[in-house]
């Protein structure tokens, strides 16, 4: 896996001690990215959840049991597993900001990327998008609905980044260093507990730059070397340990 470095690295820090698992981020994501609703969404092999909130358990019996919730967008890895396996270069990490792209018209639906992604962040369209009658009037104007046979994933609401860059150029601001509130993905914007902080990981003016240095910050499956741009935080030891999928006999 090739490691990609950029001057700007858009990333998230998700505070798991604040996430109540309410699901507002998932709904806001679907609305922003024009994901069509499914009649039977309990079949999780068919659903499209660019953002998915997992429920974690410390696996202890009552009353020692603890619960945490873990929202999982695309990790926008520094060394993405999905990019080298794509036979048609439909996914790449080649743009300032470090967001792993997904170019739908190029995708041939082979799903190698899905097999390669250790975070299960990629989804295949088994069906064409069907919106209830009239609901297509509520499609947001910048994200095309994807047809059957195409893989899709979280893009950190990339169209919002484009808009922020355009605004920066229009207002004569450096397009690599504009105010962080100009570009926030839908999930971070909607989150009612402010669990998701978004910004440029490399920019000391952004909160995320401070948060990733916290002793409580960690990334998922860090030892795979994928270098995710999504960080998590928790003061609870067991939550951090589970983030690295440790085996029972391993020391932390």
């Amino acid at each position, binding site marked *: 896996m090739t490691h990609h470095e950029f001057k700007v690295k858009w990333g998230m820090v998700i505070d798991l001690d604040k996430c109540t698992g309410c699901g507002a981020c998932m709904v806001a994501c679907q609305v922003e990215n024009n994901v069509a*609703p499914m009649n039977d969404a309990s079949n999780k092999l068919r659903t499209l959840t660019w953002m998915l909130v997992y429920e974690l358990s410390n696996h202890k019996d009552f009353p020692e*049991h*603890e619960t945490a919730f873990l929202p999982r967008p695309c990790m926008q890895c520094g060394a993405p597993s999905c990019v080298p396996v794509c036979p048609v270069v439909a996914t790449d990490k080649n743009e300032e900001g470090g967001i792993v792209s997904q170019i739908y018209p190029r995708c041939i639906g082979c799903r190698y990327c899905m097999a390669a992604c250790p975070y299960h962040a990629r989804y295949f369209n088994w069906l064409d998008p069907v919106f209830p009658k009239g609901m297509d009037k*509520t499609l947001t*104007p910048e994200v095309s609905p994807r047809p059957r046979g195409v893989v899709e994933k979280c893009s950190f609401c990339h169209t919002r980044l484009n808009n922020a860059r355009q605004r920066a150029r229009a207002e004569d601001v450096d397009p690599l260093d504009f105010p962080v509130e100009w570009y926030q993905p839908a999930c971070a914007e909607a989150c009612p507990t402010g669990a998701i902080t978004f910004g440029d990981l490399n920019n000391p003016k952004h909160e995320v730059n*401070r948060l990733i240095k916290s002793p409580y910050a960690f990334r998922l499956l860090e030892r795979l070397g994928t270098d995710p741009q999504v960080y998590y935080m928790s003061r609870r030891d067991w939550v951090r340990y589970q983030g690295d999928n440790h085996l029972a006999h391993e020391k932390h």
Partner: protein
Amino acid sequence: MGLDRRGFIHLIVGGAVGTLFTPIPWKFADDLSIWTQNWPWIPRLKHGEEARTATISKMCAAGCAVNIRTVGGRPVAAEGNPNNVLSQGGLCPLCAAGVQMMYSPSRLPGPMKRENDSFKQITWDEAAALLADKLNATVGKDGKLAMISGDESGTINEVLSGFAAALGATDYYLMPGDGQTSSRVWTGLMGGEGQIGFDLENADLTLFIGADALESWGPTVRNQKAFSASRPGGEKPKASYIYAGPVQTRTAAVSDAWVPVLPEGLASFTLGLCYFLVKNGASVDTRDFDSFKNLVMSHYTPDKVEKLVGLKPDTLQDLSRKLAQAKRPLVVVGSEFGQGGGQALQAAGAALNLLMGRLNQPGGMIAMPEAPKVVDAALDRKDLLAKDLVSYLMNMEKGRAATPDVLMVYEANPVYALPQSEAMAKALAKIPFKVSFSTYMDETAALCDLLLPTPHSLERFDDVYTPHGLGFSAWALAKPVSKPACDNLNSADFTLKLAKAMNIDLGFEDFESVLQAKAEQLGAMGGFFADEAAPWDVRSGAASAEAASDVWDGAQEGKAWCSVATVDQRALRLGAEVLAKAAQPSPDVSYPLSVSPTLQLNVGSQKVATPPQNLTTIRNTELRGKASFVQVCGQTAGKYGLSEGAMVKLTGPRGECAAKVHITERVMPGVVEAPLGFGHSAWDAYTRGKGDNTYKILSVTTEPGTGETVWTGSKVKIAKI
């Protein structure tokens, strides 16, 4: 010169290689990939000028302050409004799908009347004439007209209850909620004045007893924002949170501690905490303090509470110590699902806050002035909150109250969302003429004779005044973002027109002018816009704010009017005599398990079924295919021989429901956690027939001493099927 075989091969190969140096194959490949994904049935994007309009989305009970993003005038998405204190930029999962629900397949196209088993669309004039005819027959005969509203905080209640009063009817009820129980306790049992709220933002230790405040209780998003502000990322938390209740709810999951308490034991638990405070010398200046003291010192000693609740005395003492050590402790009590909690719990919670000296203190329990009234004929807020719908319907069911001739239901779904729902539905079905103002074909609308759909909350004028749980008075305006997608008419405007046609003068021509009058009244009360200073900072003295000059203009811009005024109390009581009778749970051995219903906003609310976009948020340990799950811990599962995924029947005294079992240690032994929001029989293909309705197994008991209807801690038995 002929073309020989070799020449032909040269031409073909050369041509093929040459073509590769032109854009033709690449253009073809590109076109092919585009056109194989470009079918006419794939929805196309529509572009247009973008704008944002601030309003209130009333999908959730409390209402979220939103900015609606429009493209070419079409609403496309809801975003939180950071300038409005009610949600401070956040969104609940229901309001996040609010725009999409404008095009829900369940939406009613226009006014309709029942013809045998189907509905026929009619005009609004025909509908008004039909209803006027029915209402004229009830004029002056109390008990012949009843109204149910599912909106606890809106001024529309003034229009509807004013209209009812003008027709001589007094049966105006709200769908049940903790706000009503709190009001009955504070202004009735305890002799207090004003509306009770909780200043979460200034508290340094908040103990939630029952109330799932960070998921669905009270003004959820504001609660979540207060929690968030006290937990700056990567820094030491500024405030602690403890949750006491039967299930490790979403609130408990992010709290510093979870204290497991049986649902029927919440009041005893709260009085058990009062014991330690009283023992340490805490007192309240009320006439009945001595009897209260005697009560807790004799009946709620740690060992007695252990017997009642199953909680170790050390845990209780440790908790009381934490409350004593905190500078600004706050106790927030409520039912786990926001209704049916009984008066004893509310009274015990208020007593605990009073014993800690937290009344009208920053970070404490606040008594706020009651909402002003603009429609003279309307019910006073206190009287509105005093009425008990469940008690009324039970009396009707048992023949103790007359069945009305006409029932009007506004934004409520009593056929689905009341305890022992099948019995309630039967009682409602007996009413000869039923009218629904619902936007959607819900279970109640499906039972009604006349459907008069009100526009979706983003298409109409509406408002929110201080939803229960808010620690300051607040008012925010909802205004139409677009024209109704269907032939709908605001129920308030329809009622005002109907009133006029029936020669009833409610003082207003349309609802917008009612709301304008409300704004004027609020302006006269003082208060300020919260974008200038946060009300909790004003309360604590950390900031000051200038009085709002034009409330209507500010509200149109999406600002919330706020006030931190408090009400002094003159003759408070602790309700000791009633508490002595009410707080003791009575064990019923034939139904050994307690139900703890969970209300999760991503699944829906009392009035709205799951929006299509929200289905993905439901885990497959909550709903799989057509079966919903109940949750029990390993100990309970072992006791009843239940395995993961087993199909079970839950039977209560007044109903039964079926579900699969998910085993999780989030639930305390002896308790079944059952989700609310499944088992719809109306609505649409996205929700209909999925899971079973937990409301069916909630059974109503009458609280000794207060007479309040209670359905928390409902009892059931469980059996494999």
